[in-house]
């Protein structure tokens, strides 16, 4: 019996150190029909060498090079090149547990309603030490879960196994104009046809999500805030987003953007976005400010 092929698409940009560990975790999987597509997004490090080292023993690991064009284009190119029944967009710095792929395939076979699935996520440190942070992947109502910025949920694409024909037939992919919000936008945009289930077990199938020291605040930049604004603009123009969701999302995103500006000590835009946020939902705005 042939088990369905799983394509693991790994965009990689100057992260050969992590990539080696990710590939190790993949070749150690309990699943046996895998193809890996490493999309080197114009790295300046030894990414090619690391992959070549694995290719000697595992010919099903493929290497593709593109000049630096961003993670979304790398993922979309990977999807085009993939031949598996299922795809996983895996980030080069994450790790997967032993039954990560097997349990996902079994889930999709057993729950015929779903065409994508995810599991619980646990965080790992720089040095692969497990950290006591649990998240669950967004599932069943991705739009609501993303718009509400629910705590303990993760939109890290590494977690999701998706039926590739559903993506290909809907010409779905990651938005190339977005960077850090690309994954969230991907799930919102594909929510009309993507049915994501959450796996009912957390033994040996978790995603180990890399938590980099410093977290978001260190990586906060004008670029990130611009990305948030772009994300907001795109989401509210989607036809299936209801008026209520639109209003709420404006309030929420303006609040987040304002907070970002505050932390970066850009007080003028911070006040401007705080005002906008308050305008869209004064009651919740006051609650949020009090809670902060």
């Amino acid at each position: 019996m042939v088990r369905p092929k799983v394509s693991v698409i790994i965009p990689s940009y100057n992260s050969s150190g992590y990539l080696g560990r990710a590939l190790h975790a993949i070749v150690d999987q309990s699943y046996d029909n895998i193809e890996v597509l490493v999309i080197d997004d114009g790295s300046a490090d030894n990414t090619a060498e690391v992959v070549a080292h694995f290719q000697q023993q595992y010919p099903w690991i493929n290497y593709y090079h593109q000049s630096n064009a961003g993670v979304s284009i790398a993922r979309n190119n990977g999807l085009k090149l993939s031949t598996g029944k299922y795809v996983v967009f895996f980030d080069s710095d994450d790790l997967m547990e032993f039954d990560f792929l097997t349990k996902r395939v079994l889930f999709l076979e057993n729950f015929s309603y779903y065409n994508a699935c995810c599991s619980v996520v646990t965080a790992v440190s720089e040095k692969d030490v497990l950290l006591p942070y649990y998240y669950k992947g967004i599932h069943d109502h991705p739009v609501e879960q993303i718009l509400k910025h629910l705590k303990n949920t993760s939109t890290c694409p590494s977690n999701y196994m998706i039926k590739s024909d559903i993506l290909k037939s809907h010409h779905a992919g990651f938005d190339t104009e977005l960077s850090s919000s690309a994954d969230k936008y991907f799930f919102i945009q594909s929510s009309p046809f993507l049915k994501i289930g959450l796996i009912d077990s957390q033994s040996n199938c978790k995603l180990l999500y890399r938590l980099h020291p410093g977290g978001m605040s260190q990586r906060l930049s004008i670029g990130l805030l611009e990305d948030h604004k772009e994300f907001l603009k795109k989401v509210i123009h989607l036809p299936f987003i209801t008026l209520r969701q639109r209003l709420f999302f404006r309030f929420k995103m303006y609040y987040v953007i304002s907070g970002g500006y505050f932390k970066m000590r850009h007080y003028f835009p911070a006040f401007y976005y705080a005002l906008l946020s308050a305008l869209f939902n004064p009651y919740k705005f006051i609650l949020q400010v009090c809670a902060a």
Partner: protein
Amino acid sequence: MCGISGYYSTDQFFHPEDLDLMVRMQEHRGPDSSGTYRDGPIGLGHNRLRILDLSEKGSQPMHSACNRYVIIYNGEVYNYEELGSALKTNTGTPFHFRSSSDTEVILESYIAQGPDFVKNLNGMFAFVIYDKELQEMVLFRDRIGIKPVYYFWDGFHFAFCSEIQTLKKIGKLNLKINYSAIPQYLHLGYIPAPFTIYENCYKLEPGHYIRIGASGFEKKKYWSLLAAEKKEVVDDEPTAMKLLSDLIASSVQYQLKSDVPYGIFLSGGIDSSLVTASAVKLAGGQINTFSIGFEDQRYNEASYAKRVAEHLGTNHHEFIVTTNDAIDTLGDYMSSYGEPFADSSGIPTLLISKLARKYVTVALSGEGGDELFHGYGSYKWATRLENYFIYKNRFLISKILKSTSSDRNKRVADMFLIDNKDALRSHIFSQEQYFFSAEEISGLFALNVLSSDLLEHLLEFTDTTFQNSLEERVEHRKLQPSEKQAMYDIQYYLPDNLLVKVDRASMHHSLEIRVPYLDHRLVEASMNISPRLKNNGVAKYILKEILYKQVPQTYFERPKKGFSIPLKHWLRKEMYFLIDDYLSPANIKQAGLVDCEYVRQLINRFNEGEDYLFQRIWLLINLHMWMRTNGY
């Protein structure tokens, strides 16, 4: 009625002895004969209970006329004669059947029409058809889930059977406890499909089929309850009565077909009395009816059944259950289900099946009437809790009720304690049955193998899938809360609890039970009857109106008791030893599933007079009994 079992694996993981073992394990399901078939990657096993075509020609596994296909089959397809006479050979001439059994008709229809032929079948079934040429098999389960199918699938090896204990017996499958199922069991009293108590073991959901072969594993849904929903409901009483009584008559007529003696379970309630009345009208002659009662007069409905039986002129048999009978049945009760299962009415169902089997091989039963025609209190609760003002003030109402001294108010107070509106359906079901609420479970469940997020997700599982299935509707109309709650029950409670209870209890005594209300035509039609006609202050109004034309109303004027047993009294006295034994701190610690201190407090509260906790205690007793019986 029969038992089916088998496997598929390309690496010779399974051996012939495994198949023999599976067949032996299910012998009680079909003591008349058994058979096996092996070929390449597969093995098929069958236990036969002869109901139709008593000759050897009907024995299984049965090969097709062209010899390319093999079938094993458990169940009854009632319209097989029509299907058979409509079947034509390639040359257009009527098909010539070798036997008079429904098995052969199913097999040949599948060959002629492919898997979609299943949509033409009317009945209860679970069957496997194997294609020798492609080395591929297809496993079907009926629309409502009357006949059981369990399967094991780890991505490499596939095995299936009619009872989950059979899989447990195959040592090499090395089944581990699925801890995710335990909170669901504590919440609902059963484990909802597709989950089972074992990892990698699943229940095949009703209305689904699985195809497995060289190209892999594929599961498909061929029927959906909600797809039957129409935009316009039948709101006119005479039209609805005509529609339903015709369908009930047609269904009963189909199901009376049998080459062996048959009878009817008559509890004296609305559902079973209507089945009996219809059967008497259709069959003529004397029909055997069976009922049971309890020594405890508060629970005894036997006299009501007797009056109905006398009125209809049936040959009535009655059996009075004593506490000792119930205690003696506990062993059978535990061994029949193979999973933790907390429906205590499984005990009387076992006893009545035993009684009936002395006289008949087939019995009709009234399951499904309450779900289709809104007989349960939970449907009223759905309406209440979805009322905006009640929902907004639910915590206040709960506090007020809790502060009163009445036992009834205290348990009702739990119904209002709902935090998560997404989990309303399961909450209502769970609290109506006095099971553990989602909140209680997070305090009770001791295992750290589940994060709180996952626990919450699991407790909402049935709600989420129910919500998802609403998308299958072709025509949308605004469903009433009571309708949604009833559909939720039809999707989960009925196949995973009620029908499991009926199938295991009857099969334990090699009796076939048929359920006329669950004819899919009747189920689909009832979806489109206005809820106003189902309950207009009188529960099951329309059904009662049909019945009262045949049996005087005075026979039924009493509060509804259902088929319940005096469990809460038994647990205080004669069955208290179960609490002492299974819920002792030592035993609970050894099992390590739930918090010891929590259980101690629960038992104390029960001992101090909080009667409504008996179901929660029964859940825990069953869980620990299951652990011990299965050597965990």
